């Protein structure tokens, strides 16, 4: 190639220099947008929110959540309004067993896809098309059949409202030590062995009165007798006919039992304030 040709080529490049630089910087800018991101790769958690039919959020007691066949505890030790549960990426369904106040089962199937992300991030699993295969809860409402990142509610788990729990609050100034509490219609005794401020106790929905005996220790026993009306009603078909309790009143050999709310709520509210 002659010197003249080289000079010519140099001149040609000069005329195209602006365009070349523009294209170069465009490439650099766009390339910066393509770095892989390692955070929030998987959407393998489903969210269950616990609620009460006709009410608000529940306070669901969970000791453990496990899946059959594995020892790992997936969720534990909580009184919670919701739970985030991991899906099994090797299976097309996952069963959860809730141990708490009772035992509940929940089985969900799904579509899963794997995708390699990068050498730094490894692979990710994406889940979709959640379907409930089986459950032992009272009712479940499907909110979103695809787990999201970050996780959001997929299911609302409903239970029938409890109509019998009366709330008792000891006055703020009092520190009350109670050994146990018994009810006149139950054989078992609630063992407390400690100080209490608030407690919810079950009324007998088949009667008009329930008498509670508080064993305060040192052979001191106090009685609280709660009177009420019951209204049988089918508010929620899946719960059947329930006795709803109203017009609460009380007599007691505590110093005072002050009525705060004369009907039963779920979650329980303080119906009586006791002054020891």
């Amino acid at each position, binding site marked *: *190639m002659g010197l003249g*040709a080289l000079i010519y*080529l140099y001149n*040609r*490049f000069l005329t*195209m220099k602006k*365009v*070349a630089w523009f*294209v170069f910087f*465009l*490439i650099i800018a*766009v*390339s910066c947008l*393509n770095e*892989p991101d390692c955070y929030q790769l998987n959407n393998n958690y489903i969210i269950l929110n616990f609620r009460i039919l006709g009410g608000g959020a529940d306070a669901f007691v969970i000791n453990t959540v496990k899946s059959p066949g*594995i020892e*790992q505890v*997936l969720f534990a030790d909580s009184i919670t309004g919701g739970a985030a549960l*991991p899906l*099994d*990426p*090797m299976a097309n369904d996952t069963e959860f067993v809730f141990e708490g106040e009772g035992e509940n089962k929940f089985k969900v199937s799904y*579509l899963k*896809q*794997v*995708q*390699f*992300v*990068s*050498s*730094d*991030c*490894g*692979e990710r699993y*994406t889940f979709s098309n959640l379907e409930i295969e089986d459950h032992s809860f009272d009712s479940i409402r499907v909110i979103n059949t695809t787990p999201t990142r970050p996780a959001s509610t997929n299911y609302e788990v409903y239970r029938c409202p409890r109509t019998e729990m009366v709330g008792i609050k000891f006055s703020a100034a009092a520190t009350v030590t109670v050994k146990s509490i018994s009810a006149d219609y139950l054989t078992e005794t609630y063992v407390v062995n400690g100080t209490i401020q608030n407690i919810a106790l079950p009324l007998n929905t088949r009667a008009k009165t329930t008498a509670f005996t508080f064993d305060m220790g040192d052979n001191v026993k106090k009685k609280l007798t709660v009177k009420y009306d019951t209204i049988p009603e089918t508010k929620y078909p899946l719960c059947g006919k329930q006795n709803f309790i109203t017009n609460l009143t009380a007599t007691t050999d505590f110093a005072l039992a002050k009525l705060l709310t004369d009907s039963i709520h779920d979650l329980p509210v303080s119906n009586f304030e006791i002054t020891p």
Partner: protein
Amino acid sequence: MASAQKADTVREKHSYKPTGIRIGTDVLSIVRSSTDDTFEGWEVNADVDFYRYYLAMDYGYWARDYEAETGQYHNNGTYWRLGGDVNFLTKDPDRNMFFIGFRYGRSQFSESLVVERIDPNWGSLNATYTNSNISAGWLELTTGLRVKLWKFIWMGYTARLKFAPDIERTPEMEPHDVPGYGRADKDYYWGFNYQILIRLPLRKTPSVLLEK
């Protein structure tokens, strides 16, 4: 007056007959194949002129191997692109080019992923996933230069903005990397080729493409 105006607007009649075919290869693919352990590939390029318009064709192969802490990924496949370029340096006597164009690209490829890891909830996870002979298509906007170096030898580069990927979906494994396109999870992607080409003349080249 009218005849003077008519004389000013006379244009040279352009010939749309091709004057030559350029065939070349992407040097960057060859360099990357020998320097980047995760990549192996090659690409051949060709174009033919119709005055200032060029029909462009590419054909290539690429394979990728990635090692991660939790497994290995491998893919390989071929791809082609077909499209056109418009040359904006019409007055250049050597037919050097600054061009803008478009392409339609299509790829046929297979990929596999081996997963070996311990999950904090589910314990040991071992699985092999494959996608066999799946296809993808996409569009590209291109720009670049072609410069005559010496006699039949040309060089150039092509920058390409790839977009609108249409990738075949499979139930078990989402594609990660599409030969010719790039990462499958990106709605647009960029590409860059540095090419060495040989021009095979088909007929005598007009000395200057004048446009008055």
